């Protein structure tokens, strides 16, 4: 397994391969090893695409996430077709006819087979400000029709396009995960490195603190802190506080990884050498020890992201986290909270699918990174 894992894939001659292997830099070795992990690679691509979609949400989403359409509530996802009248054509959708069920008087939407609308790329639609740079109205895809719409994931109770909202929600949910991890990273790294480097009573007291934080049940504490935030506050401020709350509890795991690593390399010869050369404590920690454990820390960070995302989703779902008009996946799932709306519009669960896929992707990516973190091991 070891030889195989260390063997670079695309090299012409075996001798050259060996040469490459011995002279490769550590990060190249990590990358070679990581590349072997198929699931992790797929997850990496998935997350990169997702991140791009989130950053350019305004372009990717065909409609404004807040655009209410009174005559198009709870419409089912529009099917993209390629066969019209028995002929293969450019991908298109049918316009929807609005009808009423004669028995229950419920509004139904049916395909209008007379009206194929070809899907077009870079069409003009709602205006928006692209990343604060300039005004534009170009959307990645859409249909060129005033009346008909393309709702890849249907619409919600107010006729808002679920797909557009999902993409915009990815922005908030993903960034909440990353910002939360960033806070946790600073806390965990600082306290973990102090604890691991100095040992003794400093270590003991930091350990007690971590034990204490871990001893408080997570969800109730999150809920308690989140519920204490006044409802009237600015959503952006609440967002920052929620990520802080998530981080305040999430840093202990990171600190434990860092501390364990510090214990492992504290007595290495090169650290001793640096100390004898008169380097300051700060310099030893930042210049000599931290670089040695970067890959472990990255892996631990990646594994911490899904925790944060799940935390945000759960809190918002319960109505204690972010609140509308902020769009996050947890907020979107609030619409799917009762049986009536799910049985009427199962597509409202799609943000849940997005959460599951993202969490799984981060888990696989983290596993792959952890396996690749020590390219010289085994």
């Amino acid at each position: 397994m070891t030889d195989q894992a260390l063997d670079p894939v695309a090299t012409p001659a075996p001798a050259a391969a060996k040469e490459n292997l011995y002279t490769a830099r550590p990060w190249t070795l990590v990358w070679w090893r990581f590349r072997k992990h198929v699931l992790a690679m797929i997850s990496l691509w998935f997350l990169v695409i997702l991140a791009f979609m989130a950053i350019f949400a305004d372009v990717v989403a065909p409609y404004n996430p807040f655009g209410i359409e009174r005559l198009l509530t709870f419409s089912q996802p529009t099917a993209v077709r390629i066969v019209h009248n028995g002929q293969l054509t450019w991908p298109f959708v049918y316009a929807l006819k609005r009808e009423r069920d004669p028995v229950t008087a419920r509004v139904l939407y049916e395909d209008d087979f007379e009206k194929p609308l070809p899907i077009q790329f870079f069409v003009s639609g709602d205006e928006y400000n692209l990343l604060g740079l300039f005004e534009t109205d170009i959307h990645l895809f859409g249909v060129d029709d005033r009346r008909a719409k393309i709702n890849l994931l249907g619409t919600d109770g107010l006729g808002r396009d679920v797909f557009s909202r999902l993409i915009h929600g990815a922005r908030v949910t993903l960034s909440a995960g990353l910002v939360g991890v960033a806070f946790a990273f600073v806390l965990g790294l600082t306290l973990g490195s102090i604890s691991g480097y100095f040992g003794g009573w400093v270590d003991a007291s930091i350990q007690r603190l971590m034990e204490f934080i871990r001893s408080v049940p997570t969800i109730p504490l999150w809920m308690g802190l989140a519920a204490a935030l006044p409802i009237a506050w600015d959503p952006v401020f609440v967002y920052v506080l929620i990520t802080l709350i998530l981080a305040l509890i999430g840093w202990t795991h990171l600190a434990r990884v860092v501390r364990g690593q510090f214990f492992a390399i504290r007595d290495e010869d090169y650290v001793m050498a640096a100390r004898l050369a008169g380097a300051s404590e700060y310099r030893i920690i930042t210049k000599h020890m931290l670089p040695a454990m970067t890959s472990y820390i990255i892996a631990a960070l990646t594994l911490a992201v899904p925790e944060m995302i799940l935390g945000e989703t759960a809190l918002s779902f319960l109505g204690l986290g972010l609140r509308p008009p902020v769009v996050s996946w947890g907020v979107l799932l609030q619409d799917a909270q009762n049986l009536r709306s799910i049985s009427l519009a199962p597509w409202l669960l799609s943000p849940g699918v997005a959460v599951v896929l993202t969490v799984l992707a981060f888990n696989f990516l983290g596993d792959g990174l952890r396996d690749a973190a020590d390219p010289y091991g085994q």
Partner: protein
Amino acid sequence: MIGFILRRAFWAIPTLIFVSLISFIIIQLPPGDYVTAYAAQLRHGGEYITAVQEEAMRQQMGLNDPVLVQYWRWISDIVLHGDFGHSLEWNAPVSTLIWDRLGLTLAISSLSMLFTWAIAIPVGVYSATRQYSVFDYIFTVFGFLGKGIPDFLLALVLMWISFVYLNLNVGGLFSPEFQTAPWSAAKVVDLLVHLWIPILVLATGGAAGLIRVMRANMLDELGKPYVETAYAQGLSEGQVVWNYPVRVALNPFISTVGWALPALFSGDIITAVVLNLPTTGPLLLKALQMQDMYLAGSFILILSVFTIVGTLVSDVLLAWSDPRIRYA
């Protein structure tokens, strides 16, 4: 051994004090106090009290005292009289509210815990002894899915499926006609019909993680010389596996058995909210949403105390089952 227990119990005391402080701070966090909330409630009902009256009420209830004094009053009432304070929202003592819902909560969470273990241990052992077999891969996929799917989402989906495709009336623990009826055979059957979704959701959620742990532990143990020795002595595979490595691999289960204590008390809060179960979890959520802080704070206090006691129990059990820990 007694020294070890005493030492651990001693360490728990500062943690307990700290936890109670945190709970009290959470109670105090929202702006306004009991009187503000009470006045708002009265205004909502069309009545009205003056600022002077409000101030008098504050004086009388001691809400103007320093925070530490208030904390002392709160905690001494709990420790000495078992009085957790009064819930504004329900207009009832906090202890009664929690007590009322505790029975069903305990039933659901202990059942789901039993199922979790009944699934996790045999499957974990199987996956480890038949590593890389078809079923091992299936269970691995199951484990990852269980880790990725939030419990409340699983509950939602199961509820939807059983409603749309199986025509079951789910949510809650009883059908409307049995809600207030006295206990009878029919009511028990009704309970069982409703019970399977929460048990299934909670058990799969918990088992997914534990299978991975059990499998990893078993794989560590199966390679050790004592296992080979046991095989060499001519024992059958079942005897070897279940009598030796499984007992060692169960260590992490023992170290987390204590954490089951707070879980038993609260149930899984989010799942309970989704499925509309009459357990303590939704009570906590409601309290937090209404900022009924005495109820919420007491809840968090009880949960934290249970966690600390649970950890203590785990440590003692571990020390008892594994002598190496006692002397470490």
